[in-house]
Every structure is written in C-alpha cells, then in structure tokens.
C-alpha cells in the first residue's frame, strides 16, 4: 500500500509515467489511474452497450487486464489509447458471449440518466432529447457508433482514435463523416 506522501508524488505524474511505475512493480499506481479513468471508460462502455451492469463489469475487467498485462505497455503511445484499445477487446469478448447465450442488452430507462437537480421543465425537455439521442445512437451501426462516441464524448483526437481502432487518420475522418450522416438520417426519421 502506498503512503499518502508517495501517492501525492504519483499524483503529479503523467498517466504514462504512472504506468511505467506499475510495470516496475508499484501496482498501487493503478488506484490513481482508476480515479482518473473509471468514469470516462464507464461512459464509453455505457454508450456502447446501453447497459449499466455490463459496463461496470467491463470497467473492472479492463483494470484487471491492464494490471495483468502491464508488461506489454511500452510507453510509446498514450496510456488512454492503450486502455481504450484493451476495453474494445474486452467489449468484443463480452458481446460474443452474450450472443452465444442468446442475450441482448436491455435499454436502461432514460429517466435514470437525468440529473435530479435540474429544474422540472428543463428536465422534461432533457428527458425527451436524451431518449431520442440514445435511440438514434443505438440504431447506428457499431463501428459508426464507436467512432462518434470516441470523438464526441471521450474527447479523443482523430490521431488517438486512429491508434485505438488500428486505422489511419484519414479513415477516421471518413468514418466520422459517414456516422454523422447516418445519424442525421435516423434523426430525420425518428424526431421529426
């Protein structure tokens, strides 16, 4: 276990530097990376699966796998690129297992996603919009949904998305454009 002082020292380090420390045996560094990334990673997975429990399971699995395969982190790319890359693999495994078992992800009631502190009228509007957006996202093909989530919600640059998806930046641009066009078509059909 790290003392507060050593944790404080780690706090100032970049993700990559912490990951190198973990690789050297300071496994507690993963606690800090968890604090930094569990929410963004959960957000990515929730938007991909629309399932809270599955997303939480996968977050746990990803952090476990990062610890397990820490020796494969080379530090040449960004930590978060590596993390998202890994989480895609776990997600694929999970989807494959669910398909095999004949399961499908259930839609979470969108009301749950609304901030309870919002004013009632604004809340109503938010609920309607959230439902439409979630439905539209769900209708996108997985590869389009993924690229939109990564760029719109995870604040990743195209260069990072290219590294995560193992494609060129040019291909990311094309995919983002096509995804937004497909989304427009879906919105036109459902919202208006």
């Amino acid at each position, binding site marked *: 276990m790290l003392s507060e002082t050593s944790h404080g020292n780690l706090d100032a380090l970049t993700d990559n530097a912490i990951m190198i420390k973990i690789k050297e045996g300071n*496994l507690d560094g993963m606690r800090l990376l968890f604090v930094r990334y569990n929410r963004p990673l959960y957000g990515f997975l929730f938007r991909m699966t629309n399932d*809270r429990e599955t997303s*939480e399971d996968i*977050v746990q699995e990803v*952090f476990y796998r990062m*610890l397990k395969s820490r020796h494969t982190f080379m530090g040449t790319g960004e930590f978060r690129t590596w993390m998202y890359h890994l989480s895609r693999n776990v997600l694929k495994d999970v989807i494959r297992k669910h398909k095999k078992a004949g399961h499908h992800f259930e839609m979470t009631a969108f009301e749950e*996603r609304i901030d309870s502190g919002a004013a009632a*009228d604004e809340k109503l509007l938010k609920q309607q919009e*959230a439902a439409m957006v979630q439905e539209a996202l769900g209708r996108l093909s997985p590869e389009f949904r993924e690229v939109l989530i990564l760029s719109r919600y995870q604040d990743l640059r195209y260069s990072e998305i290219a590294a995560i998806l193992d494609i060129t930046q040019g291909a990311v641009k094309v995919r983002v454009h096509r995804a937004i066009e497909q989304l427009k078509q879906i919105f036109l059909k459902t919202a208006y």
Partner: protein
Amino acid sequence: MSCKESENLVHWLNNELKPDARMALEKHLAGCASCRQELAVTQQLWLELAAAPVPEPSDGIEKRFNAMMDGLTVEQEKRPFRESIAHALAGIFNNISRWQLGLHVVFLLLGAVLAWLVFDRNEHKSSQQDQIAFLSSEVNESRQIAVLSLLQNASATRRIQGVGYADKMENINGELIDALVNTLNNDPSVSVRLMTLETLARFTADAKVRTALVESINYQQSPLLLAAIADVMVRLKEKTSRDELKKMLEKKDLDTVVRQKLQQSIFKLT
C-alpha cells in the same frame, strides 16, 4: 447536400481541420447558403448528442476495484478474476435487485394509468382533447422559460441548445423574440448567432422579427453572418433591407466574397 466541402463540416466542429483547410471551408461557407444550413443542422445534431448523459455508476464499481487491489498479491493475480471478486459482487447484487424491483413497480403503475387513459378515450374524448390542448400550451410555456434561461448561460453550447429549443417551437412571444434578437446581435459566438438567425427566420410572419432582422445587419461583423442575413433577406424579398446592405458595402475591409454576395443580394432585391 451537394458541395464536397460539406464533408468537412463535422471535422470543423471537431476542430480537426488544418489551418488552410479550415480557412478554405470558412470562406466557402461565407458564400454557400446550402452548406451554412448543413452546418446548422450538423451543429444542432452535435449538440443534441450531449443531451444523453451517462448515468452514475453504482458505488459497487469502486468497491469492486478496491477489493481487487486490496487482495492483490502475486498468487491472487494468477487466480481467475471473477473468483476473486465474487464476494463483493454478492453484496452489491442484493441492493441492485431491491432497487430494480422498486423501479419495475413504478413502471407497472405508470403503465396501468396510461392504459386506463388510452382505453377510456371514447368516454372522455372531449375532455381529453381539452387536456391535450392544455398540456401543449404548458409544454410551450415551459420551453419558453427554458430557452430564456439557456440563452443567459455562460456556455456557448448551452446557448445553442436554447436556440435549438426555440427552433422547435410553433410560435414565440415578444419576450422570447427580444431575447433571440439580443442573442443575434450581441452573442460573442458566431455559431450561436448563425443558428439564432436561422431560427428567427422561421418566425418572419411576425413583423417585429422582420424589422429586427433588417436592423441586425448593422450589428454584424462576421462575414458568415452578413452573407447569411443577406440570403434571408432575399428569401423574404425584404426590400427595406437594401439600404442597410448598401451601408455595409461602404466598409473598406469587407471580405471580397461577402462584398460580391451583398451586391448580388441588393440586385435581387431591386
């Protein structure tokens, strides 16, 4: 959508264009009404995506991670992951089940009320119509309040969201018109002003809106906005705008593309 440039609109919003491509697109936008409209649609969609927030994860997510870290030794690391956290999972499961059960009961009750409303409709048809009319006016009123509040927000994204709500309304009152005109003339963000213009252009049956749009020409510094307003004026055949447009031509530092655009618009309005 016909222009090749429209493929770059989403990358422009994403700030992923290189400076030369960015400038080329902005110049194209100043002269192409169709792409500006496409930009407004894409921008609106981009913002609407933000309307679907992710729910908070349960406390369990942190507990499970900490349980894993606390129990982590070289030997434990070799054991299957699910086995090592099974205990933590069992504890969380009970809470979730009870919570989900409560939610299901609420939905069941809501469903029953909804079914009663639907199947009883013949008997209460006229009163239901009154209720629907009342509810629509309530929703419209709520929307107006939300728009006014959003337009005051410090975040440009929230202000655009407010304009987006106004765009979906069937009619707008004087207070809302004033707020939108103020946004059109004074908002620091070009994107917000551009979208406000498109929204106000929907309500030009109201003479107040038409007058405000003509007067707004004086306030606009951005070539994009000037070109867009000129287009709206031509669309509305608003001949009273000619003088204001001509005044703009007197400005020496006016962008060449915009100058041509204004000249064409004045010609069309003559």
